[in-house]
């Protein structure tokens, strides 16, 4: 974040996985002696141990979701018979299908709007030279530092004044994204700066206007970065709890995290609920699965996106 100079920011690290191969090959080249093969084995065992720690809670979650009400806190893994009916029951007890729809609508709208708006703004900062640019970009960076909790109350009051609290438009959960998001603007600007200026100048000569230039040159060339923004926001919106808690009241309008939170209030045995914790677990599996599926198809973008944000710091 020490850059901010006029057009002098460093080009972004490439989004293709062409990370330095020498580092790895050099090490792999070494690994021939018996001693290094032994140490390699030790490392692998350690990593498998860590894998167990990270993955086992998922297995436990799945197992608990298939137990009976009395067994759910027991320590048996997958006691037979498996109770798949938990997954049917949960849809009958709460409007889970509706929550799925709500979460999907909110997440997709949030991700689409923030990607388009942030890209427009980022391109504005990256391509044009105009008075006040550095001051405005400084404001973008500064607003990145604002803790979300600080803005919550005034944002609530704005949406309340607009009559959008508890509204089926879900506007408070996504419409703010129409105006871009500081972090994504910062990220995308780096990528637009990395594009050679000549590709645009050629289009200028051909008489293309700036919007066309943005849409048919800049956007296709930074597709990978735009996908990163899209999936980051998709995940953020899918997992958010605080905003739905603030803005949605009717059970039928709940998002999935909010619905799951509600399930805990009615089923948590420690809350004196009826202790149907196996249903809470089944719902937890259902809310987690879509993100895992998205990850399965977009691993590269998740991993490289995170690695890139780390190197931009």
């Amino acid at each position: 974040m020490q850059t901010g100079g006029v057009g002098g920011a460093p080009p972004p690290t490439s989004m293709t996985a062409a990370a330095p191969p020498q580092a790895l090959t050099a090490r792999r080249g070494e690994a021939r002696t018996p001693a290094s093969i032994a140490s390699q084995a030790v490392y692998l065992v350690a990593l498998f141990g860590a894998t167990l720690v990270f993955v086992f809670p998922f297995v436990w979650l799945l197992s608990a979701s298939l137990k009976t009400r009395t067994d759910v806190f027991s320590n048996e893994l997958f006691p037979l018979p498996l109770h798949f009916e938990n997954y049917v029951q949960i849809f009958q007890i709460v409007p889970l299908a509706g929550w799925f729809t709500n979460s999907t609508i909110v997440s997709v709208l949030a991700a689409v709007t923030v990607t388009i708006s942030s890209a427009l703004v980022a391109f504005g900062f990256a391509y044009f030279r105009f008075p006040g640019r550095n001051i405005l970009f400084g404001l973008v960076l500064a607003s990145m530092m604002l803790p979300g909790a600080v803005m919550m109350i005034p944002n609530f009051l704005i949406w309340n004044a607009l009559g959008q609290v508890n509204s089926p438009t879900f506007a408070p959960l996504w419409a703010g994204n129409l105006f871009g998001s500081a972090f994504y603007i910062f990220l995308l600007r780096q990528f637009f700066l990395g594009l050679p200026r000549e590709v645009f100048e050629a289009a200028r000569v051909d008489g293309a206007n700036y919007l066309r230039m943005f849409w048919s040159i800049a956007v296709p060339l930074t597709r990978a970065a735009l996908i990163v923004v899209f999936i980051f926001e998709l995940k953020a919106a899918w997992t958010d709890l605080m905003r739905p808690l603030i803005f949605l009241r009717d059970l039928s309008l709940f998002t999935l995290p909010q619905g799951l939170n509600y399930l805990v209030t009615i089923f948590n045995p420690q809350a004196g609920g009826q202790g149907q914790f196996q249903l809470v677990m089944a719902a937890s599996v259902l809310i987690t699965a879509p993100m895992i599926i998205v990850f399965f198809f977009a691993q590269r973008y998740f991993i490289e996106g995170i690695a890139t944000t780390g190197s931009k710091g």
Partner: protein
Amino acid sequence: MTATGATASPRRRWRVSEETRWAFIFLLPWIIGFLIFTAGPMIASLYLSFTDYNVIRPPDPVGLENYEQLMRDRRIPLSLVNTAVYAGLNVPATIIISLALAMLLLRVGRAAGFFRNVFYLPNLTPAVAVGTLYLLLLSGNGLLNRIIGVFGIDGPNWLTDPSWAKQGIVIMSLWTLGSTVIIYFAALKNVPVELYEAAKIDGASAWQQFRNITVPFISGALFFTLIVNTIASLQIFAEVFTMFFTTRSGPAQDSALFYTIYLFQKAFQDLDMGYASAMAWLLFVIILVITLIQVRLSRRFVYYAGEGG
């Protein structure tokens, strides 16, 4: 680079060039958003912090009363200390464990990608679901206590024992450190191997290599994760809310009352918006000060490869 704007300006300075006009068309969404959703709210929130406001009746100016109440409210220091203890445990543990895992990844060649992706999986779990899962794992006779019981340790009930609730929450948070591992692994791959080889020839120990090559080279990533994890830790909400605050009262609630949760309760459950605004500003100042200190420190310690001088 080119200078389209330079040719237009000398004669008629006040005239906005075509390029500037276009720039502001592109920037328009952000400018509107900044005014409506950032600048406006900040001013509004500052004003509200000097009023008594419950949404139903118009704000009633009360001067410094909310800030005086901040000083008297025992739950303020309680929630601040809880948050500080949590962040103080979670951030260093996250950094150390992530770095260890990333360094292991670096040593296993092609297999690294698989492990790295597996470590990231918990990050995909919505925070509320992490909370529900750990309600199960951290309970008195839950999985965690079963596992440490193998080593003869009689684990506490992490959910009801006030002196262990925060540690339990840290354990839960450490499950989702995968993104930090990804950042370190990417940074470590950029450390030139020749440096280690030269150091080995000079007889440097493994610790000396770590201290004098690895750490300086990845110091940018270290500070980035320090700042990001600190800010995130200071604002932890969803998991803990679901685990401890879905009930009216609970034995460990005082121990798990983090600042953001108390802020949420005051604002949206008690509808004490004026007081909550003052709380929000206190949090903002705290985060600002901590971040500035960390940025200062990073200027001193972070080594930027390829930076001329």
